[in-house]
């Protein structure tokens, strides 16, 4: 079983996001990136499947930002092969362009299954996983929370609102958009990432990608402030008093 996991970097939302001078993109100069959290779940599910049925996991990422660190982190967690996709990509990189570049790179690799994170916080123009499946001409299922693999097919659970799930058989190869791995994604300590940097190599492939398929961005703007919450200020002690006062006023506590 050869599993490919495309990894993407997304802005770390813990940091303040600023809009650049053009007004059409984030100011990326000081932007801190992290692995898309759903991709972390996809990687975890891939590693679990490898442990169960054998095989190999290949992590693939597009060049840019801290891509090497991203790939070495995947190696530290257990990925067997690391592939960096280079090319003349549009900025900002949209989902259609990313999916085309990944399809170009993955076409040359051997694979039975591709696991992607179900979504990312910057997917203005749709899910990379679904687009990738179409560019590769293989089926896809999104919002997957359970995967079992046998006899050339995957048995997956797809989740809907309210927690009800559909069970599907999917003939491989296929792309699955992972919502959550069966267990919390494993953690790679810095020491293991460093070891991976010394011991693993990153292969490079090149691919092309047009951005077609996205709408034209007019502008970015922060949601309006002001209409929101009345802020409670002061020491924790004072804030706790205020909260209890509100709860009493509403008759929620006596």
């Amino acid at each position: 079983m050869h599993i490919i996991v495309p990894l993407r970097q997304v802005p770390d939302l813990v940091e303040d996001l600023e809009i650049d001078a053009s007004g059409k993109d984030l100011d990326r100069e000081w932007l801190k990136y992290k692995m898309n959290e759903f991709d972390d779940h996809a990687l975890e599910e891939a590693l679990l499947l490898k442990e169960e049925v054998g095989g190999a996991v290949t992590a693939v990422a597009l060049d840019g930002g801290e891509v090497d660190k991203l790939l070495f982190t995947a190696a530290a967690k257990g990925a067997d092969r690391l592939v960096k996709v280079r090319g003349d990509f549009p900025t900002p990189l949209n989902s259609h362009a990313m999916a085309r570049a990944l399809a170009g790179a993955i076409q040359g690799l051997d694979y039975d299954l591709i696991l992607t994170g179900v979504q990312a916080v910057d997917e203005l123009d749709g899910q990379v996983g679904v687009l990738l499946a179409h560019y590769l001409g293989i089926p896809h299922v999104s919002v997957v929370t359970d995967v079992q693999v046998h006899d050339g097919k995957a048995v997956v659970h797809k989740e809907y609102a309210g927690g009800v799930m559909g069970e599907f058989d999917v003939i491989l190869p296929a792309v699955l958009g992972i919502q959550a791995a069966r267990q919390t994604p494993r953690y790679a300590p810095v020491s293991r990432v460093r070891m991976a940097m010394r011991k693993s190599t990153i292969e490079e492939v090149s691919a092309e990608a047009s951005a077609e398929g996205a709408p034209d961005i007019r502008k970015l703007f922060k949601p309006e402030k002001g209409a929101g919450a009345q802020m409670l200020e002061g020491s924790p002690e004072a804030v706790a008093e205020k909260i209890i006062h509100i709860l009493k006023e509403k008759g929620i506590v006596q």
Partner: protein
Amino acid sequence: MSDVLVFAEHLQGNLTDSTFELLGKGRELAQTTGGHLIAALLGKGVEPLTEQMGVAHKVVMVEHQQLAAFNPEAYAIALKAVVQSLNPSIILIPYTSMGMDLASALSADLGIPLAAYVSEVKIEDGTLMTVSQMYGGKVNVESEFSGNPKIVSVLAGAFPAEAGKVEGTPVIETMEAPNALANLRVTFKQWIEPEGGDVDITQQDVLVSIGRGIQSQENIPMVEELARKLGGALSASRPIIDNKWLPKSRQVGKSGLKVKPRLYLALGISGAPEHIEGMKDAELIIAVNSDPNAPIFEYAHYGVVGDLFDLLPILKEKLGG
């Protein structure tokens, strides 16, 4: 053409709220474009659902055994056939579990543009404009489209469902199911109902809800105690559930439950659109978050910027036994 096509989402025999939200918005858009509002209804034995779709001018129905339950591959094939036959100007698809499989598939298959995470749709001087809630609701992106058709994938709860709830049966046109449905790589096997939780969070007056800010599983009992003192229960946002720190039955938001308690105390929840759709109708929302720019403060009635681990022990103490 200037028609507006809505994908009529239904789950286990019922049209979803998203469908009515999109039908209501679709009708308004069709008035501006001067076209018709058409609903695409895919399924098997789904004709009775059309009685709730009086707001549409027409329902195009495709029936096939492979469409009886949602199937990402089968539904994409059937919806594509409907789009190709009608050539609408705007296609509205909910940004839900089903919609995620369909909108991107249609965009890639037909080579037409798509905007996701959409919370606002307008036509300005003949140009379609959308606003998408990106980066966990922290930054909005305004986009425009040229050419037809285009796909707009709309967040649940973005528009009022009431505008789409009109009784009366529109014109029904049955379309022949595409032959490709006979040869699928994805097969639906069965429904799996969620395990009944120990607590039904939709029935609670008070919910103390935790998000990523809770940091570790070890901190959960402390919050549970607070919930107990308030006579309520513990709920959570998606990352907590995905990490298996609490059972699925406690999840608020998209792919979880919609709740409407008298008090929703949000602790360390940033307020991504997927969470907001599940709790924004709570009577009283109090949010505690260390990030002053957390979107949750736009929806809360009262907000506290600070460390929840400083506040919690004091709050618990003051609430007494």
